[in-house]
């Protein structure tokens, strides 16, 4: 297909004149029948790539996605862009509706599915019976960072792809070190895939770290940042409960419009809060990392991490939600010495000694059910007949990898030199020269004036409207 035709399609279908960095190259490789691993920063319109390819090639686009909430966001987004033949196959649907969906796969253009679901014989059989335009592995870094511990089913994606007849495959991720990229192509058995890489550097995001003496000082700094820096703001936490509690507290003390967001909310509540935020009816969202994977809000001005992220890769991904409009934005980690122990203990939850692993294999051999999250994970290995020594090796390697990731993150947090340089060198990139609007060095103030990120007057909370007026606004035109 000629380049001109692709531009025509871009204009006609999506109303854009230009491709974003990386999009065109990836699309051309895929249309030429080549597999692609694309490392593109968040906000570069990754879904446009498979949408456009899907509209050119006949058949179904299968998108493997790690989270149900992410899939629902993506289906909603495609619906929004006018794609009607889209569905997600999830464990939340009952047997009947799933079966119905499988029976009409040939009428779909896009199917979102988790690896677990795709692994089910009935699903695999149904997908094998339709023509595939493209096989997409979204958030492909999950194979490496989530694979051995949380999502053993990701390990089977390579086999699944074989069983589907080795369709043209697109692996998408926002961040991946060389090690992770190798991991992805090895697991998916596509060693010759083209790699299209774009820098993880986001020059318009100012990188800051506030080192504080204790939890009280941390809360005070959070409040001060929220009150003085321009919004909209996302604050990330590592616990669900803390998102709600802090949202309530911030609402009380700042008078701003603040909401909590986490995977424990109902689908309806998640939708409402996302949309309130998107349409400017919320100033601050307090969220777990569940927030934002499917969200495309261009004008987020500040991303605060109240707790440490688990790795620099996650961090880059999460702050990448700020400043997508290209305007200055601010990323801040609030750090109290010892915070890394929380990450450490989260890591420990999913680690196990060789003795524990061997004992769990005995449990499986005795046909006793899994007792905890760890044995549930291990069950996946035992069911595939993998031997305990090999599993132990994987666990040891994984624990070491996590340790390295945490150490790299701490180097970034405690750096006394340019943080951007530390971050980029981790991803094997060269850094631009440090400047006043690059990053915060120890002892320096936030250059809010230079960045143009001072908060304006607080928005007046809107008057509670009479229900009759509200109803008229909803259903009567020109009211």
């Amino acid at each position, binding site marked *: 297909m000629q380049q001109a035709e692709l531009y025509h399609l871009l204009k006609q279908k999506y109303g854009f004149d230009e491709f974003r960095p990386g999009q065109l190259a990836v699309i051309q490789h895929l249309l030429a029948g080549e597999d692609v691993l694309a490392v593109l920063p968040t906000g570069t319109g990754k879904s446009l790539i498979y949408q456009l390819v899907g509209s050119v090639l006949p058949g179904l686009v299968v998108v493997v996605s790690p989270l149900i909430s992410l899939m629902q966001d993506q289906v909603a987004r495609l619906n*929004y862009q*006018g794609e009607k033949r889209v569905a997600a196959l999830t464990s939340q649907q009952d047997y009947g509706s799933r079966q119905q969906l499988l029976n009409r796969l040939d009428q779909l253009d896009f199917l979102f599915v988790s690896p677990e679901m795709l692994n089910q014989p009935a699903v695999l059989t149904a997908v094998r019976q339709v023509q595939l335009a493209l096989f997409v592995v979204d958030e492909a870094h999950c194979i490496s960072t989530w694979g051995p511990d949380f999502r053993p089913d990701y390990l089977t994606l390579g086999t699944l792809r074989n069983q589907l007849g080795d369709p043209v495959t697109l692996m998408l991720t926002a961040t991946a070190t060389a090690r992770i990229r190798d991991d992805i192509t090895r697991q998916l058995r596509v060693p010759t895939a083209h790699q299209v890489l774009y820098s993880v550097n986001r020059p318009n995001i100012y990188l800051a770290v506030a080192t504080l003496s204790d939890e009280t000082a941390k809360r005070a700094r959070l409040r001060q940042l929220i009150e003085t820096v321009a919004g909209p703001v996302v604050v990330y936490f590592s616990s669900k409960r803390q998102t709600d509690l802090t949202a309530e507290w911030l609402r009380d003390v700042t008078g701003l419009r603040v*909401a909590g967001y986490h995977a424990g909310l109902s689908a309806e*509540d998640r939708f*409402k809060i996302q*949309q309130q935020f998107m349409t400017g009816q919320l100033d601050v969202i307090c969220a777990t990392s569940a927030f934002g994977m499917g969200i495309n809000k261009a004008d987020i001005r500040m991303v605060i991490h109240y707790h440490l992220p688990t790795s620099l890769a996650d961090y880059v991904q999460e702050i990448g939600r700020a400043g997508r409009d290209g305007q200055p934005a601010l990323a801040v980690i609030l750090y109290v010495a010892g915070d890394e122990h929380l990450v450490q203990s989260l890591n420990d939850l999913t680690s196990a000694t060789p003795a524990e692993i061997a004992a769990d294999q005995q449990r499986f051999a005795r046909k006793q059910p899994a007792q905890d999250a760890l044995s549930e994970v291990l069950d996946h290995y035992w069911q595939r007949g993998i031997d305990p020594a090999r599993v132990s090796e994987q666990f040891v390697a994984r624990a070491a990898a996590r340790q390295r990731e945490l150490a790299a993150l701490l180097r970034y947090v405690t750096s006394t030199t340019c943080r951007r340089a530390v971050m980029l060198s981790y991803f094997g990139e060269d850094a631009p020269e440090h400047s006043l609007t690059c990053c915060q060095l120890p002892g320096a103030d936030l250059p809010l004036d230079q960045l143009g990120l001072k908060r304006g007057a607080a928005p007046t909370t809107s008057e509670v409207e009479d229900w009759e007026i*509200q109803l008229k*606004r909803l259903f*009567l035109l020109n009211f």
Partner: protein
Amino acid sequence: MFEDYLLRLFSVTPRRAKAIFNVLRGRRTVSTLFAGLTYGCLDQLDSWHGVPLERFLATAEALVNQGFLASPQPGYLQLTPDGQQRVAATTLYRPVALSAFQTVAVRQFAAEAQLALQVVSEAVHQQRRYYPVTTDPKTQARVKAWVRQQSRTREVAAAVYAGLHAFLGQLDPQLAAIFVASLTGYRQPGLTDAQLGVRFDRQPIELLMIRKDLTCQWVAWLQSHPKDPLAGLLAPLVKASPVSTSAQRTVRDFSQSGDLNQIAQNRRLKPSTVREHLLEAAILTPRFPFKRVLSPAVLTQLSDGFGGRQDVADWQFAEAQAVNAQLTFFEFRLYQIMRCHDATS
């Protein structure tokens, strides 16, 4: 709080806790339904669908530990004086229309209506690009089909507006405000239960209950206004009777032949299943033809023995058997059900 809603289901006499919880969770075994009838909570059948039994049991245990409930014998709970006081003092919203759950797929209707209202609201403002409030394929497909059956957008929107205005106008203004503020549509994502709780100074669980009850009230309103556009969305989700199809058929067969064993044979059911069907129907339909099953002689005997006693749940089958050794448990239970209906009619 959830605790307060739970506490309201108990009284100063002992009640079988699990049976009550199973009524709320929508279990339809005869023993659960009978408990619902005798404890007067059948109107809440299925209204807490999906809440695990463990959650109920843990909450009940907490209430026992706090001294609001007591357990006079294993499996039974009753209000303590503190519990009575707490129930009397609570101002939590009291639902009035939850019986809709017996015959209507209320949760599915709520999902479809929410999407349908969003579609109409966006359409009347000529918006073609928006995020649908649900991506559930079944709900989307059914709403799409409904939209195709409607006339011109502006007329539908006007009719939807008129219907909602009429329905909400008869409610307490705060309830109307909650209903409208939770809707999703043009330039209005809608408020979550937690946000409504802040705005109206109520607890989130209360909002959950209010919105559930308002949906049920709306369902009832739509059933009496069949020309409203939303009534078309509701109609396929309504069953004619709360009784299961199979039990309905048994009742029909029975009213023709009157012979339980013959029905069992014809339908290849166990006689005990046929009796269960009749009990289910008797519990859920007050107009059940009790006197076709209970002979005048049996009725006389039973009303001689139990005529003056209101504590239906506590009657012992053994007492009745002592008077008439031929009496079956089925007849005894049916008489209990009849008396419950008589007491409430």
